[in-house]
């Protein structure tokens, strides 16, 4: 087993990894930018190395600085967290060349799933139900031809896009002709790649994803699903496990299909297969994320598994020791992502946290990267903490989350806690009747019913 793990990340996920390492008796190295000198991950790791200025391209994304930090501290493994370099195959390769164990999938597995068009083709060849889509389009005439063959409405997507960016819903070929060149140059500017393709547009889908874990001995386990339909501009805000939209039969069938498909392709470490669920109850594969996800704690709570510990054991070459039969969820878990942002305008709200009191009590877990008196820098992701609850039933989990949010006090900056309270109090949410459009509809409803201010 390796002895010292460098965490190539910051914020709550860096802390999440440090905590499991400490429980496993592994020493930890935090890397940090200048602005994160007093950040919690810097403070709680056994060692901390400043690797560059606040600009992430010169610190958290700067491969030579991270490798050099591993070299001078004698770390023998690297956990990339999520975001930053977590899905960068060159980084995984460089780690291997420098005799550092990369805690994640193999570089070729990342490449295989990283390109969305080829990932969909691969998923299809493995027998996964995939969303209908096209090859990359050549020019505007080719685009019109492909879109018509697929049938409007279509979703125009950037091949290099991610995190919900680079997408356009198009109702007609006139609309497509009007936007095509703009979409192409946007894509080139944002992702350095102007390749575009189409997917069938599903009007009101739910976003359902399945957690997988694979080891170096060919074992693949599927650890149930997460419901991630509560999104704003394709950014997840609230997640839960299990999903009320899946029957046991659908869940077991899809788990078996995924286990067989990924077993055939081969996969090491934690990964997530994202699906859309349409109103006919059909699940279609969207993409595969070859890394740990932000919302992994809801799976951990209902499955009783420490996914980071499993990632570390698998990287060390140990076989997974999970039951042969698919694990079934125990109770219900909900996660609220607490972002430093205005709950109405969603404008970022960095600054100094003057006071902080996080919720506690039975069934409440807090994964946070901040402390009272600490600073939320403007340079990074606004996610400052995740509040996660676990209860026997979904209704109890909702009540518990409402209680936990009411106890949470974060002073000095604005957070989206009021938004979470509105979501949890909404009858459609309580009844489980929602799609990825829920938040847009909630905002519209709020505008209609909000008292007029004079």
């Amino acid at each position: 087993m390796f002895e010292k793990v460098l965490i190539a990340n910051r914020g709550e996920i860096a802390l999440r990894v440090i905590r499991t390492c400490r429980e496993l008796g592994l020493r930890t190295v935090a890397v940090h930018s200048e602005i994160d000198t007093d950040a919690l991950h810097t403070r709680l790791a056994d060692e901390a190395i400043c690797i560059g200025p606040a600009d992430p391209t010169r610190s958290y994304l700067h491969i030579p600085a991270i490798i050099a930090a591993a070299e001078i501290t004698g770390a023998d493994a690297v956990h990339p967290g999520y975001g930053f370099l977590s899905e960068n195959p060159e980084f995984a390769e460089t780690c291997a060349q420098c005799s550092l164990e990369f805690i994640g999938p193999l570089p070729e597995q990342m490449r295989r799933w990283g390109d969305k068009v080829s990932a969909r083709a691969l998923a299809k060849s493995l027998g996964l139900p995939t969303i209908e889509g096209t090859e990359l389009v050549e020019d505007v005439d080719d685009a019109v031809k492909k879109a018509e063959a697929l049938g409007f409405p279509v979703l125009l997507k950037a091949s290099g896009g991610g995190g919900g960016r680079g997408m356009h819903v198009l109702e007609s070929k006139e609309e497509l002709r009007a936007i095509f060149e703009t979409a192409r140059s946007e894509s080139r500017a944002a992702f350095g790649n102007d390749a575009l393709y189409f997917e069938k547009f599903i009007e009101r889908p739910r976003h359902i994803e399945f957690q997988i874990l694979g080891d170096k001995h060919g074992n693949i386990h599927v650890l149930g699903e997460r419901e991630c339909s509560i999104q704003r501009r394709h950014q997840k805000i609230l997640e839960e496990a299990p999903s009320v939209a899946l029957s046991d039969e659908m869940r077991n069938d899809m788990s078996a299909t995924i286990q067989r498909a990924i077993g055939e392709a081969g996969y090491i470490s934690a990964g997530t297969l994202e699906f859309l669920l349409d109103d006919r109850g059909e699940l279609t594969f969207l993409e595969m994320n070859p890394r740990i996800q932000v919302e992994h704690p809801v799976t951990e709570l209902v499955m009783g598994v420490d996914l980071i510990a499993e990632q570390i054991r698998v990287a060390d070459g140990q076989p997974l020791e999970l039951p042969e039969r698919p694990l079934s969820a125990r109770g219900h878990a909900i996660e609220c992502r607490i972002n430093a942002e205005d709950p109405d305008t969603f404008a970022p709200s960095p600054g100094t946290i003057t006071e902080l009191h996080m919720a506690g009590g039975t069934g409440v877990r807090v994964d946070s990267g901040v402390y009272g008196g600490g600073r939320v820098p403007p340079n990074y992701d606004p996610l400052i903490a995740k509040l996660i609850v676990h209860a026997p039933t979904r209704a109890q989990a909702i009540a518990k989350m409402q209680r936990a949010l009411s106890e949470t006090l974060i002073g000095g900056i604005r957070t989206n806690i009021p938004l979470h309270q509105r979501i949890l109090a909404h009858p459609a949410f309580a009844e489980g009747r929602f799609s990825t459009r829920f938040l847009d509809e909630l905002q519209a409803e709020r505008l209609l019913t909000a008292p007029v201010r004079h």
Partner: protein
Amino acid sequence: MKLDLDQLRDLIRLLDESNLTEIEVEHDDDRIRVRRDPVASQSVAPGAVASSTHPSGAPAAEEDEGSYVTSPFVGTFYRASSPESDAFVEVGDSIAPGQVLCIVEAMKLMNEIESEVAGTIVDVLVENGKPVEYGDRLFRIETT
């Protein structure tokens, strides 16, 4: 002005609640100055790094004179191009802009660190072969 403890406490509280690093009050011939280091020094595991000086932390008053060459990389600090060679610079040497002062090795790449200014080496702050972080002070220089 007699030194009044309550006044002093008020000043400290004022400093604490503000973004200021220094408050000076002058009254007739008396003067009280309260100041702080804006960045609290960060504890790092012993032996982990060569220097605990923080790059953006304001130097304490007695260190204020002179300027510093800081490390642009995280890596290992070398004073010479090879173990047999002489050090690039010694204390007392005059240096010119563009002159190589040391090497910071990262990922087997030898990065030569050049001086941006003309001056004299006053102090070498890191031992040969020791690890340095981004922003660590390597040399103190008196600029000319």
